[in-house]
């Protein structure tokens, strides 16, 4: 609209779709340098992605069909307030079974953050219950939630997921430092901590000079790998991944997606909360759509598409069909 008024608009985004839809020309920058400027009409999402990372990219995730087993996570009538005392999770019900990835799709601010925080003990539950492996963890403190077999990849890794000034090793043991053999009688055993960290760095391909490097100096992708190493290595029955690939380069995204599928195939339950519809569609077996604090519908990932999800996320009902909006 402003365009027709003769105004110039600069849109800065990492969402390729947005660019394809509204822009006339597009400049791609990588590591602080301009890679090139193209006319949007002459390019495609894949070509842009290639410019962004410098190599060919595949968006699809390869995975077998899920074989879900018993229910691991069961959320019943959950009600949670945000910091302004407004109910943002409002009678939410959701089950996740062992060996499946359930994606939570929704527009930002529909209670996803508060849902995850309440499940992991970081936020008070006002009403309802959360059960993991038949343990009622509703009013557990974060540590007890962790010990009950929940792994949590937080949505804001700098705020919640890591201590920037700590070393990679200290960050990797952030959930288990107090346990034997890392702590004995209240005293830390650094040789054991370093040994464990080295093994994790190796296994999860964290690119760092060594385990004593401050986590601050790692790239975003490697910081996230460090967090995932910590959370996944505990082999939790229930893994909650909140926006696990936000702001990461495509290489790290591939790696992390692979790890999530691997966890599923080991027979663990995975809950994926993401704002990226592509990520949800690619990874999930079932997709729960959250709208205004409740799950409005659950669909099978291979029986739905972006259009339908988009409609549900906006509050439309599936039965109502497309014409309603």
């Amino acid at each position, binding site marked *: 609209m402003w365009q027709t008024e003769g105004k110039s608009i600069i849109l800065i985004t990492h969402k390729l779709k947005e660019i394809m839809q509204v822009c006339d020309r597009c400049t791609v920058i990588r590591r602080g340098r301009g890679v090139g400027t193209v006319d949007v009409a002459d390019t495609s999402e894949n070509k842009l992605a290639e410019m962004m990372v410098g190599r060919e990219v595949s968006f699809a995730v390869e995975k077998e069909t899920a074989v879900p087993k018993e229910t691991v996570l069961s959320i019943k009538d959950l009600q949670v307030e945000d910091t302004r005392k407004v109910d943002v999770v409002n009678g939410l019900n959701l089950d996740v079974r062992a060996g499946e990835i359930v994606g939570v799709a929704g527009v930002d601010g529909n209670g996803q953050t508060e849902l995850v925080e309440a499940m992991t003990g970081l936020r008070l539950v006002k009403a309802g219950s959360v059960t993991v492996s038949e343990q009622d963890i509703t009013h557990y403190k974060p540590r007890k939630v962790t010990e009950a077999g929940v792994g949590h990849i937080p949505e804001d890794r700098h705020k*919640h997921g890591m201590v920037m000034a700590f070393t990679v090793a200290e960050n990797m043991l952030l*959930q288990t430092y107090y346990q034997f053999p890392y702590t004995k009688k209240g005293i*830390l055993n650094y040789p054991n901590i370093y040994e464990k960290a080295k093994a994790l760095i190796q296994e999860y391909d964290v690119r760092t000079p060594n385990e004593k490097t401050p986590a601050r100096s790692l790239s975003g992708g490697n910081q996230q790998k460090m967090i995932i190493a910590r959370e996944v290595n505990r082999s939790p029955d229930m893994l909650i991944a909140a926006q696990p690939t936000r702001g990461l380069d495509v290489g790290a995204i591939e790696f992390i997606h692979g790890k999530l599928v691997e966890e599923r195939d080991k027979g663990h339950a995975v809950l994926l909360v993401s704002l990226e519809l592509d990520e949800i569609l690619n990874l999930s077996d079932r997709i729960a759509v959250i709208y205004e604090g409740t799950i409005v519908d659950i669909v099978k990932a291979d029986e739905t598409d972006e259009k339908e999800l988009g409609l549900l996320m906006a509050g439309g009902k599936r039965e109502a069909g497309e014409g309603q909006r």
Partner: protein
Amino acid sequence: MKNLLTSRWFGLFIPLIAIGFGFFAGALIMLISGNNPVTGYVALVEGVFGDLYYFGETLQQMIPLIFSGIAVAFAFRTGLLNIGVEGQLIVGWFAAVIVGISIEAPLMIHLPLAILGGAIAGALWGFVPGLLKARLQVHEVIVTIMMNYIAMHVANALIRAYFQESGQRTAFIHDSASLASEFLAEITNFSRLHWGFFLAVLACVLMWFLLWKTKLGFELRSVGHNRQASAYAGMNVNTNIIMSMSISGGFAGVGGAMLGLGTFEYAEILSSFTDYGFDGIAVALLGASNAIGIFFSSFLFGGLQQGANNMQGQANVAPELADIIIALIIFFVASSYLIRWIYSRLQSKKEGK
């Protein structure tokens, strides 16, 4: 090329540059005020190393500075600024002396008990702001400042009401609670150096061990760097805040006990603050909140204060010059941005050639 800014030696580089700047500014001030900086600084150095007595007194000065420096640094590691070290030191001084006066017991029991008295009093004085911070999110800086005045007035009132002996002070403590050392006094030409010096060194080791080698220290540092992540990792942030302030206060309280049991062997009605607590901020800051750093910066500040006396006698320079230099050193350390900026400017100039 290797950039010094990102290297680990920069941590050492900044304090050294800051000290250099501080002394340079001190020299300028001497020049402007019509003194000869060379004679001034010679007198300063001689005031520390020129006589065994001076040196002993410098070491004696270091004792409370080390403790208050540790107290400030310990809280700082948990992300708290304990300006209340002064008050915690005063109540620790008072409590230790009271135990030293009112109990009769053999040395092996009495002395530890008196020190413990100081530690508990200081810890209690740190506990209050810690609790208010953890439970009610009250900023610890203001509370600790207020607690300083309360400490001074309450200790003064209690001495006046119950313990006043001669003049403005209490009776002397019993010998069984004393840290005074004939041996140390003798080898330092009868300075007031006492056994507390070794306790101070021990406290440095204890601080290092607590912070870097224990589970508690891991949690305290984690909370200091990132509260949200610590809560996420299952640590109890509030408990850690209270714990940190109490331990910090405990260190300060023992520092006060060192004055009461070692240096003076009595407590007195204070007309103004001892300033040891405030100096502790400078010590901790220059020492980068690090045990070894605190030891050396205590020596620097203790030496400055001790040497300043000689500066007045020998070179006729007002002893307040020491305070000015200390203030400027804090300024330069706190403004490390300036040093980084100058350094990177110099670097880019070099690269430009």
